[in-house]
C-alpha cells in the first residue's frame, strides 16, 4: 500500500472503527494483529520507511508513526474500557442484600448472673481498700455457725435463724447449712494472724420463702481485726462502700443501735433513698430510709473463740444480703426469680460477659 495521506486516513478510520467495535479481548487482539502484527497493515507501512529517501522519510515517518501511536493508544484504551465493564458486570452480579441479619456474637449473647456481677463489684470496692476475699464451706458445724459466734445454746437468737439441719451422725454431731457467712470470721482468725481485713461473699441458707426471702440466698460480710479499728473506722468503711456501690457522690446513712450476738456494740444501718417513683429506688437523695446492713464491734467472746485476746485485738464486722443490694441497685422485684434460671430474666437483668466492674471504668455501664 502506498503511504499517501489519503490512504493513511482511510486505514486509521478503519482500524479505529474496528477497535471501537471490538466486544471482547479476543476481538481486540484480532485488530491488534491486523494492524500491528508481523504482517499487520501498520507494520507493513512501517516497513516502507526503510527504503525511503531521507526527505521522503521526513514527511512520511511522522505520519506513519503517528498512526501507530494512535492505534496503539486506542487499543489500550479499549482494553481498559472492556476490563472496567467486565468488573462492573461482575460486581453487579456479586451484589448481596446487606440488610440480611448476621448472627450475634456469642460474647454478646452470654450473660453473667447479677449475683456474680455484684460480688465482682463488691470485690472491686473492698479490694481497693485492701480487703482480701475469704470463703468457707456451706455445710458447717454448730460450733462455727453459732457457739463460736456467741449464740448461747437455746437462745431465741438461734431460733431466728430457721436453720437447715442434717441428720445427726453416729457420734451425735449434727451438721447444718450455714445461716450466715460469719463462720468464716472464726475460720479466718484461726488460720491467720491480725491484721485481718477480709470480705466474705457466699451462699447462706434459712428455712424461709417468699418474695424477699429464699431458702438459699447470698450474703457478704466484712471483718477487720487489728489493734485500733473502731466504730468511727467502721462508719467510714461503710459510707465509702455505699457511695461506691450505689455510684452516688454522697449518701446519708443512719446508724441505729441494735443487737446481734456476735457484735457489741451492734448497729443497724439505714441508707437515705427516694422511693417516691413506683418501681424505682434512688439512693443519695429523698427522705426515705431503707435498712441495708447490720454491723458492730466484734464481740469479745467471738475474738476469744478465734483464738485472740480481746484486750489486745479489736475490730468490726458487718453483713448484708448480696441479693438484696442487687435488687435495690438494679430493681429486680422478686428474689425467687434469681434462682429460676429463666433465660428471659437472665437476658434482661444479667450482665454482658465483657462488662467487668472496675473502679477506674465505673462499676456498671
Amino acid at each position, binding site marked *: 500500500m502506498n503511504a499517501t495521506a489519503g490512504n493513511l486516513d482511510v486505514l486509521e478510520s478503519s482500524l479505529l472503527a474496528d477497535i471501537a467495535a471490538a466486544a471482547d479481548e479476543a476481538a481486540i487482539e484480532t485488530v491488534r494483529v491486523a494492524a500491528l502484527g508481523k504482517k499487520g497493515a501498520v507494520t507493513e507501512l512501517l516497513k516502507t520507511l526503510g527504503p525511503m529517501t531521507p526527505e521522503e522519510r521526513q514527511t512520511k515517518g511522522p505520519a506513519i508513526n503517528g498512526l501507530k501511536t494512535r492505534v496503539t493508544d486506542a487499543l489500550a484504551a479499549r482494553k481498559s474500557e472492556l476490563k472496567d465493564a467486565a468488573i462492573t458486570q461482575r460486581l453487579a452480579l456479586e451484589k448481596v442484600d446487606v440488610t440480611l441479619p448476621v448472627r450475634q456474637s456469642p460474647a454478646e449473647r*452470654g450473660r453473667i448472673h447479677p449475683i456474680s456481677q455484684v460480688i465482682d463489684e463488691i470485690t472491686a470496692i473492698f479490694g481497693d481498700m485492701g480487703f482480701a476475699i475469704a470463703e468457707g464451706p456451706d455445710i458447717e458445724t454448730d460450733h462455727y455457725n453459732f457457739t463460736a459466734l456467741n449464740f448461747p445454746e437455746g437462745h431465741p437468737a438461734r431460733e431466728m435463724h430457721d436453720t437447715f439441719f442434717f441428720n445427726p*451422725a453416729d457420734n451425735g454431731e449434727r451438721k447444718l447449712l450455714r445461716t450466715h457467712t460469719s463462720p468464716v470470721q472464726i475460720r479466718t482468725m484461726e488460720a491467720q494472724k491480725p491484721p485481718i481485713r477480709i470480705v466474705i461473699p457466699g*451462699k447462706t441458707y434459712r428455712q424461709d420463702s417468699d418474695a424477699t426471702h429464699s431458702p438459699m440466698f447470698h450474703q457478704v460480710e466484712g471483718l477487720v481485726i487489728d489493734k485500733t479499728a473502731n466504730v468511727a473506722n467502721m462508719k467510714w468503711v461503710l459510707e465509702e462502700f455505699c457511695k461506691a456501690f450505689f455510684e452516688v457522690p454522697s449518701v446519708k446513712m443512719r446508724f441505729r443501735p*441494735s443487737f446481734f450476738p456476735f457484735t457489741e456494740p451492734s448497729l443497724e444501718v439505714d441508707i437515705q433513698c427516694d422511693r417516691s417513683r413506683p418501681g424505682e429506688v434512688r439512693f443519695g437523695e429523698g427522705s426515705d430510709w431503707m435498712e441495708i446492713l447490720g454491723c458492730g464491734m466484734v464481740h469479745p467472746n467471738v475474738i476469744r473463740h478465734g483464738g485472740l485476746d480481746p484486750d489486745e485485738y479489736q475490730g468490726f464486722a458487718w453483713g448484708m444480703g448480696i441479693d438484696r443490694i442487687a435488687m435495690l441497685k438494679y430493681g429486680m422485684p422478686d428474689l425467687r426469680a434469681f434462682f429460676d434460671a429463666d433465660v428471659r430474666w437472665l437476658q434482661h437483668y444479667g450482665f454482658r*460477659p*465483657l462488662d467487668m466492674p472496675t473502679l477506674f471504668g465505673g462499676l456498671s455501664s
Partner: protein
Amino acid sequence: MKFTLSWLKDHLDTDASLEEIVERLTSIGLEVEHVDDKAALKPFVIARVVSAVQHPDADRLRVLTVDTGSGNPIQVVCGAPNARAGMIGAFAAPGTYVPGIDVTLAVGKIRGVESHGMMCSERELELSDDHNGIIDLPDDAPVGTSFATYAHLDDPVIEINLTPNRPDATGVYGIARDLAASGLGTLKTPPVEPVPGKGACPVKVEIAASELCPGFALRLVRAVKNGASPKWLQQRLIAIGLRPINALVDITNYVTFDRGRPLHVFDAAKVAGNLVVRRARDGEKVLALDGREYTLTPDMCVIADNNGVESIAGIMGGEHSGCDENTTDVLIESALWEPLNIARTGRTLGIITDARYRFERGVDPEFMVPGLELATKLVLDLCGGEPTESEVVGYAGHKSKIVSFPLSEVKRLTGLDVPKAESLDILTRLGFGPKGGGDRVDVTVPSWRPDVDGKADLVEEIMRIHGVDEIASQPLASHDAVNAKILTVLQIRTRAAKRALAVRGMMEAVTWSFIPARHAELFGGGQPALKLANPIAADMSDMRPSLLPGLVSAAQRNADRGFGDVALFEVSGTYEGDVPDAQRRVAAGVRRGTAGLQGSGRDWSGNAAPVGVFDAKADALAVLEACGAPVDRLQIEAGGPAWYHPGRSGTIKLGPKVVLGTFGEFHPKTLETLDVSGPLCGFEVFVDAIPEPKMKATRTKPKLELSAFQAVKRDFAFVVDRAVETGTLTRAALSADKKLITGVSVFDIFEGASLGEGKKSVAIEVSIQPAEKTLNDEDFEALAKRIVDSVGKQTGGVLRG
C-alpha cells in the same frame, strides 16, 4: 412491743412531741416500726342532724341542717342513705382534710344547693372500709366535742421492733426509763407500795423443779367482783391489739405490758389442794386457755394441783382453773422461769404468748414480788376483795453482776470522746451503779438487764445514749500487710471460668444447692450425711453431688416456656461429704436444642445443628484454658460417668489420676429420670483440681523464636480400624518429628465400603516449620516416611491409596 403515747406518759413526764419521741426511740436502739397516729381526725367534731329534707334536684341527696354545738345550724348536702333527723355523727367543716377521700373540703354547691361541710362515713375517716352510710353514734355522744377524743382515737399507737436482748423494754415503764436516761423527760412512776394482807395464803406452793423455777409468789384475794374492766383499761388493751376478757385477766395483761411482768390468775374455787411446780409427766395432757389440748413431756414445767396440770408454766394457763365472771376468789401468781426452758417448751408446743415472749428473754427477778403487789392493788381497785399475805417460795434474791470497767473503753471501741462524768451519768440514769473514782469503775448491773455482761455492753449503753450520730467517720489506715493479695487462685479461676463461659454465649444460672433425692442418687450423691433433716420441700432434700441435674432441669423449664434452645452454666459448689474439704468448686454447663457456640435455630446462612458431645467438649476445654490448666498436656479418654451416653462422652485427665472434667451427651435413662428431653449435652470441670501454677521468679515471657524459613503444609490420609481413636493417630503423627512438625489437624473422617469392613479413613493436615534450612524434596520424602511409619506403628494405619 406496742404501747400508746398516753400510756408512755403515765411513766414519763415530757414535753417532747410524738415525732421527737419516735426519733429518739429509734436512735437509742428501740427501733420504731410503726406509728398509728390518728392526728388527722382531730378537726372532726360530733354533730347532730337537726333536719333532713329531700334535695330539690336530686333523688339520692338530702339537705341536712346540722348542729355542731356552735349554735349556728349548718347546711350540708348529704348522699348517705342512713342520714336522718336526730342522728349523731362525725362532722367535717370546710377546710378540713378528709383522709379517706384525700380531699380538703371547701364550701360548694351540689346541684344548686350550698353545702358547708360533710357528715362522714368510717371509710372517709379511714377507720374501716364501711361506706354504707355516715357514722351513727349513740344518743349520748356529746355534740360539739372532738370525735377523735370521744372515740379514743387521739392516742397514737407506737410499735417497737424489739431486739431479743432487751427484756427490760418489754414493758412501757422500761421504755420510759430508757427515754428518760436519754434526756427526753423524767421518770415519774412512784415505787410500788406493798399491799398489806390478812392471814397467810391458804394455798401452799411446793417447787419440785427448782432448776426450772427460781422463784414463785402467790396470793389469794377473796370476795372479788369480776366483770368487765373499766373503759380506760379496755381501751389501752384494744389499742395494742389485745381483746379485753374480764377485769382479772385484763389486769394480768396490763401488768405484762406496763412492766414486762407476766402474771397468771387462777380461780381459787377450781384449784384443788396446794400447788406444785414440777416437770410434766410424759404424755400428760392439759387443755389450755386457747381451747387447745397440749400433750406434755418431762422437759416441760407445769403448775399442778390435786386435779392435775393447771398451767403450762410461764407460757399459758389451763382452761380448767381460768377466771371468769363467776370467780370470787382469785389466786394471783407472779413467778420466775428458766428462760431457755420456756423458749424450748414454747417452740415444741408451738405456743406464742406475751408471757413466753418475756420469760424467754428473762424478766426482772427483783420485780417478782412488786409485780404481785401491783397486781393485788389493781385487783382491789377494780374488783374489790380481801387479800391474804403473799406466799413467796424459792427466791434466793438477785445477785448483781459487777463489771470492772475502764472508761477509756468507750474511746477504744467507738472513737468517741465522752467525758467521764457523762459516762457515769448515763450509766446511773439507766439504773447501773458505777462505783469508784478512778479511770476504772466497778459497775453494778441492774437486775432488769440480764443482757449486760461485760465492758463492751457498757460501751454500747454509753454510745447509744450519748448518740451514735456523734461518732465522726475516721478513714481506716492502710496496712501493707493486708494489701498484698485480694483473690486466691481458686477465686481468680472461678471468675475466669464464668467470664469464659459467658463469652461462649452461655447464660449464668444460680440453681439450688439442694436437689431431689432421686436426682442426687443418679449423679452419684444421696448419701445419708448429705440429706437435710428438715428440707423446705420434699424435692429440695439432698445436697447436690453435681451441678448438672440442676442445670438440666433449668434448661427443661425454659423449654417448657417455649425457649428450647438454651445454653446455661454455673460455677459453684458441689458436695461429696459434710466436711469443708468435700465441698468442690465446679464449672458446669449444658446446651439444649440447637444452642451451639455460633447461635441457635434457623438462619439464612445455615441452620444451627443439634448440640452434641463436641459442643460440650469445646466448652470444657475453654474453661480449662481460661483457668490456666496445662491444655497441651491434657488427655481425653473415651467414656464418662454413668449419667452420660457411654459412646458419646469423655473424661479429661491430667496424668493417670487427676480428673479435670467430663463431658458428653446424656444417657437416655438420665433424661428419663430427670424427666427432660433433648438434644442435650453438658460438661463439668473441677476447677479446684487444676494444679496451681508454679510461683515464677519473673513475669518475663520466654524469648520468641521466629523461623526465617517458609512454613508448609502436607496432607495425609490413613486407613485405620474404626476403633482407632483419632487422638492416637494425631499424636503419632506429631511425634514423628518434634522439631519440624508444629501441628496436626484432622480435616476429614470417612467410612465407606470401598475401605473395607470396619475401616475408616482419617485425613490429616501436618504443619511443618523448618528451622535451619529450606526443605528439599528428599527432606520431605524422609519426613513423610517418618510420619507414615509412626502412624503405622501406633495405629496399624496405612496410607490411603
